[in-house]
């Protein structure tokens, strides 16, 4: 009734074959079809950033991206940040600095911060705030999130690897 077809989505290095309609969002495809529920739905309107994922390395809002637009591209979600169960320095910094409370906005922040640090390994505090301006958080007041990103950047600078 709604013209679904099978899309091949490359997520975190794996291939997912999912049945999507033309208007299925990437967010729906990830959460409901690929069962990757790490990416969150906070508003479905592109205003909160909880659904941020990386598409070919660029942070996008999955609720405003159509699933078919993501075909043939590299999608990375929070589940694909760490390899083999080891937390990345950014994830470790979030944990150690208390940069999360309820954790609902956290995947979106991690994806936005991952993009920032890959493009700008030595961001100023102001640059961090600007890069994260599209991710809303109600619990933390942002202070420890910014501190964690600074710490992760600092750690990388000191040769901590990535």
């Amino acid at each position, binding site marked *: 009734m709604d013209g679904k077809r099978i899309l091949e989505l490359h997520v975190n290095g794996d291939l997912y074959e999912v049945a999507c309609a033309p208007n299925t969002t990437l967010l729906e495809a990830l959460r409901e079809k690929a069962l990757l529920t790490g990416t*969150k739905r906070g508003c479905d309107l592109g205003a909160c950033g909880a659904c941020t994922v990386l598409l070919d390395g660029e942070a996008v809002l999955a609720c405003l991206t159509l699933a078919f637009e993501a075909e043939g591209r590299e999608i990375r979600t929070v589940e694909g940040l760490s390899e083999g169960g080891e*937390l990345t320095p950014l994830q470790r910094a979030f*944990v150690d600095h208390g940069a999360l409370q309820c954790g609902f906005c956290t995947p979106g922040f991690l994806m936005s911060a991952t993009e920032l640090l890959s493009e700008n390994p030595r961001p100023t505090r102001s640059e961090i705030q600007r890069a994260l301006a599209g991710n809303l958080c109600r619990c933390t*007041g942002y202070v420890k999130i910014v501190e964690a990103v600074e710490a992760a950047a600092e750690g990388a600078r000191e040769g901590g690897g990535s």
Partner: protein
Amino acid sequence: MKKLHVVGQRVPMHDAAAKVTGRAQFTDDLVLPGTLYGKLVRSPIPHGRIVRIDPSRALALPGVKGVVTGKDIPDRVYGIVPKAKDEHALARDKVRYIGDEVAAVVAADPETAEEAARRVHVEYEPLPAVFDPLEAMREGAPLVHEALGTNASASIRKEFGDVDAAFARSDFVFEDSFYSQAVNHAPLEPHAALAAYDPQDGDLTLWSSTQIPYFLKRNLATTLLVPEHKIRVIKPKVGGGFGQKIDMFAKDFCACWFARRLGRPVKFVYEREEAFQCTRQRHPMYLTVKTGVRRDGTILAQEITAHADGGAYNSTAPLMITLSCFFVMIPYRIENLRYEGYHVYTNKPVGGAMRGHGIPQARFAIERQIDLIAARIGVDPAEMRVRNAIRAGEPHPAGFVIHTCGFAESVREAARAIGWAEKRGKLPYGRGVGLAGASFPSGVANMAHLASGAVVQLLREGRVNVLSGAADIGQGAETVICQMVAERLGVPMEDVHITAADTGTCPLDAGTFGSGVTVRAGNAALRAADDVRRQLFAFVADRLEVDPEDLEAADRRIWVRGSPTRGMTLAEALRAYQYDDRPVPIVGRGSWIPPAEQPTTLLTENGNFSPNYSFMTQAAEVEVDPETGKVTVLKMVTAHDCGQPINPMLVEGQLEGSILGGMGQALYEDSTCIDGQQYNPSFLDYGLPTAMEMPEVEGIHIDTDDPEGPFGAKEAGEGTQLAPAPAIVNAIADAIGVEFDRLPVTPERVLDALRKKRSEGGAGPGG
């Protein structure tokens, strides 16, 4: 001071790794085969009778499995405060606000459910509506709940001392009025519920994004007419609540309703618009404060009148207005006080518990007026607060028992840290500093059903299991409970595992509200841990031929105090215990209820309100752009007395979150409601602060050690959201000489005020 190993440490949340890897499961992340999806049908008018509901077009849609309306469900009202229950899960005869639920549908997928909800045909007979609490109090105003006979559904009147005589002997008496706006909690996770039913044994399980699993179970039993023991409520990870997830909601009831009827799991997830408009918000409030002072600023008497805009249903009405009343009684010594407050129904979104729960509004009014009075009589506002500060151990007019109080020190410290002496009244035009004080209870004593229970099991391999009723909604309740148990048993954090907030397996806890969890559930867990410790130490002491009182435990070792080589590892102790044919695991249990020296029924009698009280002062430095009206908060200082923090990192997290929350209320947030219609139920138009608004934050810990709190702790979850708004508005007054009496202070309001000041020949830069 005893050395602590785990308590008092900056321990990351025990589930932080799960949250940063996307493994943490929130209600909408749970997947059960065969799940059906539900949507609610809501009233488009603010007040009206339901004439007719025709679900036939919805039922005809392929994939739709059912429709339910108010007429199909038992005629049972529910509510978190037993004496104020006034809400049906689905409206029966009439609708009372735009968004009121009238029906629900379930279907094979969410899109079909959404289409089906649109196809349910409802006819209404509109009724006159009322949108303002002062209007709603007038004779002849439309009644939102006719049976009550009035729109003032809850009220409180308290009087101490002789207020009129005290006004008569005051050097000055001032009366000022204030307004505090509707604010939304806006937790990032929308409300969600997933119900599953086993038709063979009649067991119903509900996973719900809730702060109150045990109350929810009770409300479900009452409204579904199912015995409580057949209902199990499980709280998964919750993506924030701040009070908006206290109460049963239509999603909980309807998920259960359909699951029982269809024998399949049913999931309801609210859209963000529904979370904004159809759950709860902070009560808008009109306040008038009349204060009599001596010329040195000592407060002799205060008279406060408050009208809270309750919206269409009660929710926590009597509790909210009572808190608003009682918490004007601290942190200042007010021996002659009269408070009259009303919770008033209107045909608008429903007010409920929101971080601070009636107190931020009152604190805004009182803290603003202190600054106004200080300016009028020529005293320093910080000094005036210190002069009037209560102190620990003083008799209190309402009977509060205050063992520890760091308020006066918090004022001085906050003033010092913001640079009060150098800056107040001395910064260039457009920059200013201000401060405000507050106090908050650590949970409420003397209310029924507020015991908490815990079970601690020490397994023979050294693993510790904790069963607790505590509902962690992101504040870290589970983590601090594990810290406290780890400390008591002498093991590291990683050995302690917690199962919580599952009504089927965990002992009772009232839930996450009133900043009571650390004190209440923490004390219960401590008692359970003490029970385990007693059993193990009796055995070890016997082996070492010492008294159990002489033993210490830390880092998985037990030894004789003063003779560290006389001891054994925990592993050795447990092995010996087992080989002595004693039962393992060692199981301890504990319950805790706040001490009640005098009975206080919340609304009618005086007496101690809470096991202990936190105290704090916030100071703000702001910069106002006179061209755009924009207010930038440069720095916020919070000096807080929360006793001994169990986990300083988590306490800081609470304070920082509260500061941004208070900033939002001061400057950006306003759930704008016109003729009952909310105009900004989305993050696009609702001014939630972003990382760009984050100021420099400095936290100062005022050290007290409370006898009632576990390890000397007091609350830290709500108190800091009481005073940022008045601190900021007080700073704005210092910056541009404009006194704002209503929130939020938007750029438009700043420009209007500056324009008005100029046209009255008032001050501009340099004047």
